[in-house]
């Protein structure tokens, strides 16, 4: 009898305590972890439609960022001028925004321009881009600049994997991923 009474009292006390604890634990506004909520904001970028997009290294040097380059509507820039502009590095506003390039300062002479060629697009393999300088020693950011610039701008309406054929070797095809 006494044992049962004690046990039932203990149960009641435990229930009451649990209730109080629940009540207290639920109070206030608690901090949370990071919760994803919907898609990103799509902004209008003037001149980005059908323009070539060059990729330069961002100010803090951890990624490549897109810079649209347009000389007129509905005009596809040829591979040689595209490579030339890319190799020239950021100028004007891009330079003012602190963008840099990781590619070597190479001027593409007309003699070299025969090497600059973009192979025909194949949906499964992508494209191969030939450049007139060695590519084995290029940094990751430099390779990304090439892959992203040609992958996004060389073929209309598609983003393609890019293999880079330098004077020394051919880098295997990769996709453009601006972030490291």
């Amino acid at each position, binding site marked *: 009898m006494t044992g049962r009474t004690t046990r039932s009292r203990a149960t009641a006390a435990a229930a009451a305590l649990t209730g109080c604890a629940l*009540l207290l634990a639920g109070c206030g506004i608690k901090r949370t972890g990071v919760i994803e909520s919907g898609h990103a904001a799509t902004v209008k970028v003037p001149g980005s439609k059908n323009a070539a997009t060059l990729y330069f290294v961002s100010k803090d040097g951890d990624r490549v960022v897109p810079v649209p380059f347009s000389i007129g509507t509905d005009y596809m820039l040829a591979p040689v001028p595209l490579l030339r502009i890319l190799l020239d590095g950021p100028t004007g506003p891009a330079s003012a925004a602190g963008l840099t390039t990781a590619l070597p300062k190479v001027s593409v002479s007309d003699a070299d321009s025969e090497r600059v060629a973009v192979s025909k697009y194949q949906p499964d393999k992508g494209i191969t881009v030939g450049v007139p300088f060695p590519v084995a020693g290029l940094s990751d950011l430099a390779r990304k600049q090439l892959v992203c610039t040609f992958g996004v701008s060389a073929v209309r309406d598609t983003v393609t994997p890019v293999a880079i054929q330098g004077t020394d070797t051919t880098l295997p095809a990769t996709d453009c991923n601006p972030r490291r």
Partner: protein
Amino acid sequence: MRRIAPLGLRTRLIAAFLLVAAISAGTTAALTYQQARNAILKQTQDTAVSTLRDQVEQQEVRLPLEQQELQRIVIELGKRGKPHPWIIFGEYGGTRVSTNPGTPTSTVITDSLRDRVRNNQYAAFQRVEDQRGNPWLTIGVPAVFEHNGYTEATGVVFYASVPLSTEKQTVEAMVEAAQQGAVPGLAIAVVPALLAARSVLRPVRDMRRAAQKLGRGRLDTRIEVRGADELAGLARTFNETARALEQSVRELQEAETRARRFASDVSHELRTPLAGMLAVTEVLDEDAARLDADTAKALHLVSAETGKLAVLVEDLMEISRFDARAAELNLDDVDIAEAVRKTLERRHWDDDRVVTELPDGVRARLDPRRFDVVLANLVGNALRHGGAPVHVTVSTASGGDGERLLIDVADSGPGIAPEVLPHIFDRFFKADAARTRSAGSGLGLAITLENVRLHGGTLRAGNRPEGGAFFTLDMPLEARA
């Protein structure tokens, strides 16, 4: 009679009621509170995230973004905070600006939020607390643009930090309301608890009172049966038991009354013929001298036995009167020493067989005839069964309800056997089993006790340590009729 025991039924019932009320109120309040709080926070978060996204989507971002341009967009976004004013931070590469030019970076935006929105094309939010413990909602929305049919990260991320102080106040107000509502709620719960306790306790209390009355001899006690629950069943059973008990007791009483009336009637009927017989034997006794020796002896025996029979019948009638409660006190003021002396003289016990110790001037109010019977019985008994000398000591004492008269009668005999002592006042009880016939009727001490009781006193019998039996009479000096 304790009405509220420390853990009585009422206390336990009320405690159980309050516990149930507290648990249900607490659970309801907690669940309601949680739902309401989550709804409030969800609405704030969703509104803020979608507002920031919508606002960002209306902006034109000229890539590459210069610091002045980013500053312009950030200030533009900062004006359109919803649901609360917010602080906007813009990051593009290493460029960081905010609506507040003094602090280009936020203290509440965590690195985990920054990593998440920079590496994924999703908006995200996080609730954090600043150093002072105030809650903030931080939102990160990366800006992307469409290019060549694909979405492309611009590298620009906008953050907003929204103070949640309004939500905090609302939530605290809800907690306060719940707390303030709980106390009156519990107070209100006491009322049904008391009513329920009353409905249970009233039958129990009635039953206890009835049982007490029954114990005091009020056998006609019954309980009012209310409703048809277990307590009503108990009350019904109680009533049936009481009825059966009353019936049995009445039958017993009737049987006893019949038996007593029979004894009374018998003794009454015997009295008249006995009176005649006594008269005849007295006449014959006078003439016994003229008869031969054997006849005279027989005649004396008949005469003596007839006398004893007459005494027995008188005693029987006396005890019948006590049984019928027909005995009455005829109170008179008497001097106790005088009364004792007169009793002893009348019985010719005024020689040295009886030693008296009588205080002078003690007057008592009692029935002189019954007092005489009592004293004569006690002294006669002492002389007959005990032995001379018999000590009669009269004294007074002050008791709880007035002065009391104490009379001690002690003999010098062998005393009363211990197994006999409890039955000494029983009717027809013979102290000496071998002696079937005694001088007394066997009712002497019973009549003595009834007489003492009639005066409101007590009579005790015992043995003195130095040998011999004693009887102690204790009765009020002023008897009441």
